[in-house]
């Protein structure tokens, strides 16, 4: 334990002194309660950054310099620091791990920790938590996968939670953890309202689409949840920006796809294929023309599939465009495949 000022000094805590402090105990209870003097019933809000307890009604700072439960302030990612000044170690992730407070002996640093042959004297760095090892591994894998497609923290957290629930349930124990992790990632994206296609998840995972699909259905059954159906609009912004199409074309494509589904021109077609065909039609009518192959590459759809869906929407092309669309190529000059 290093020297230095302790994080909190007993004298500064208001409730330990019973002199004229601002907080007062109303009754002779065993635990002194911190209250705002003006609003004794208000529940105090903790401001962890400054270590204050603040009354939400009047804003009075009631407790001062209480214990900071965040991470160690002095943790720097400083390569030059050979000795880590951190006194408390890494942040805990109590929701996801066992939440145990086990400690372990770390690698020695001085010369005395090595015996004659250069091996370290104390060698027990083995299992810190064997039960959670697979789960931690999976979390690492999830973070890696999500990083590849730049998914935000909230999706990663949701995925971790889903994985934890599935793992604890043990009903899918025989399945590969990576497959379950990929399926959880897929479900989390869906649940957050920003679905990714199975092919996009396949691209960042080593598991096949078939296996991810199987695990997906099993997880939905095990957790007894369901997800919303995908729509064409969910993918428009991503596909269009990956293709470099301007906003006008993206909005036109969204409108086309929605109208096509409403008019039931494409019954039974996957929404991804319809979206791809709509993007093709919109881009061909604008100045930024994209080929079917390029769109197929981005969307993960075969170009014959785009051709098929395009053939279905082509006859009604004039009705599908939004009314305020500026045509670079008029509707009758659209390519007919």
């Amino acid at each position, binding site marked *: 334990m290093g020297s230095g000022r302790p994080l909190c000094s007993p004298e500064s805590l208001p409730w330990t002194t019973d002199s004229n402090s601002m907080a007062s105990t109303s009754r002779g209870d065993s635990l002194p309660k911190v209250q705002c003097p003006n609003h004794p019933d208000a529940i105090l809000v903790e401001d962890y950054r400054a270590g204050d307890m603040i009354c939400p009604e009047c804003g009075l700072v009631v407790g001062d310099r209480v214990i900071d439960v965040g991470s160690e302030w002095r943790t720097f990612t400083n390569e030059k620091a050979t000795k880590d000044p951190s006194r408390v170690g890494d942040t805990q992730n109590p929701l996801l791990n066992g939440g145990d407070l086990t400690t372990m002996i770390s690698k020695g640093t001085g010369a005395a920790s090595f015996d004659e042959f250069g091996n370290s004297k104390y060698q027990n760095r083995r299992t810190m938590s064997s039960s959670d090892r697979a789960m931690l591994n999976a979390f690492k894998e999830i973070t890696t996968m999500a990083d590849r497609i730049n998914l935000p923290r909230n999706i990663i957290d949701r995925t971790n939670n889903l994985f934890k*629930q599935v793992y604890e*349930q043990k*009903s899918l124990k025989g399945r590969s953890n990576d497959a379950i992790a990929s399926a959880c990632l897929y479900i989390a994206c869906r649940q957050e309202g920003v679905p990714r*296609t*199975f092919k996009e998840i396949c691209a960042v995972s080593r598991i096949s689409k078939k296996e991810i*699909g199987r695990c*997906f*259905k099993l997880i*939905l059954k*095990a*957790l*007894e*949840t*369901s997800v919303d*159906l*995908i729509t064409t609009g969910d993918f428009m912004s991503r596909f269009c920006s990956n293709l470099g199409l301007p906003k006008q074309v993206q909005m036109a494509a969204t409108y086309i796809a929605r109208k096509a589904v409403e*008019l*039931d021109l494409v*019954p*039974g*077609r*996957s*929404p*991804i294929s319809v979206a791809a065909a709509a993007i093709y039609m919109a881009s061909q009518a604008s100045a930024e023309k994209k080929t079917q192959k390029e769109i197929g590459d981005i969307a993960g759809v075969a170009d014959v599939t785009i051709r098929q869906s395009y053939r279905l929407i082509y006859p009604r092309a004039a009705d599908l465009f939004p009314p305020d669309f500026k045509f670079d190529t008029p509707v009758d000059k659209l390519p007919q495949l």
Partner: protein
Amino acid sequence: MEQNNSLPPFPQGLASPQGAMTPGLPIFSPMMPYGTGLTPQPVQNTNSLSLLEEQQRHGMVGGSGQTPQLYHSQVSTTTALPGNTPLYTTPLTPMTPITPATPASESSGIVPQLQNIVSTVNLGCKLDLKTIALRARNAEYNPKRFAAVIMRIREPRTTALIFSSGKMVCTGAKSEEQSRLAARKYARVVQKLGFPAKFLDFKIQNMVGSCDVKFPIRLEGLVLTHQQFSSYEPELFPGLIYRMIKPRIVLLIFVSGKVVLTGAKVRGEIYEAFENIYPILKGFRKTT
């Protein structure tokens, strides 16, 4: 018929305190009293949510005592289906109507056709697959790929997998009788090759039927209202997979109106499942 009057209290073990996400017995377990929506009911617009909530609430309150009005007497009107003996014999006058005329639940008039029957039989003796493959006609045997002889006959056009333990699987028949006949023919072939084949434990394991409701179906609507039974993932499969609980049948429902039913052990289950799903599909008919 006391199913509609009071829901008998079921064991508390089924109550899930939190509702949806707890593991353990799913809400639609076979122990639930009949008529809690396990048999799919035709949705009557606003009550659809309350039906699902009713099922959710069953997990929490042990028998609410409310009788949901949706359970009108959907007693299976047993019209004489081919292959079934009628349950009622005609009473005194042949003019009296036998089945209660409930106009809301007329039978669909469509009968699913059986497409495939899978059955197993035990020939009762160990077999030498090599000799069978060499001597029988229309037999293939590739032990590196699969450990059974694959034999085909033309008359009921079927395929059999014959294993060295003496057990045999017969697939491809279009009716129960044909499946049994085909299995007997295979057993005869094996017997003629010199093995003391018997015909023990013939059992039909799976029956597949298909039919057409002749109108397009809104699968998105169906998956919204029957979430616990349906799975519709256009990325994975273009049809909706409906897992019916009451006859335990899986139905593949397509946009075109074609329906495939599978998982039945007896013909009546297929017919019953189709009669159950038909009014629901009618409710999701595409109007344009």
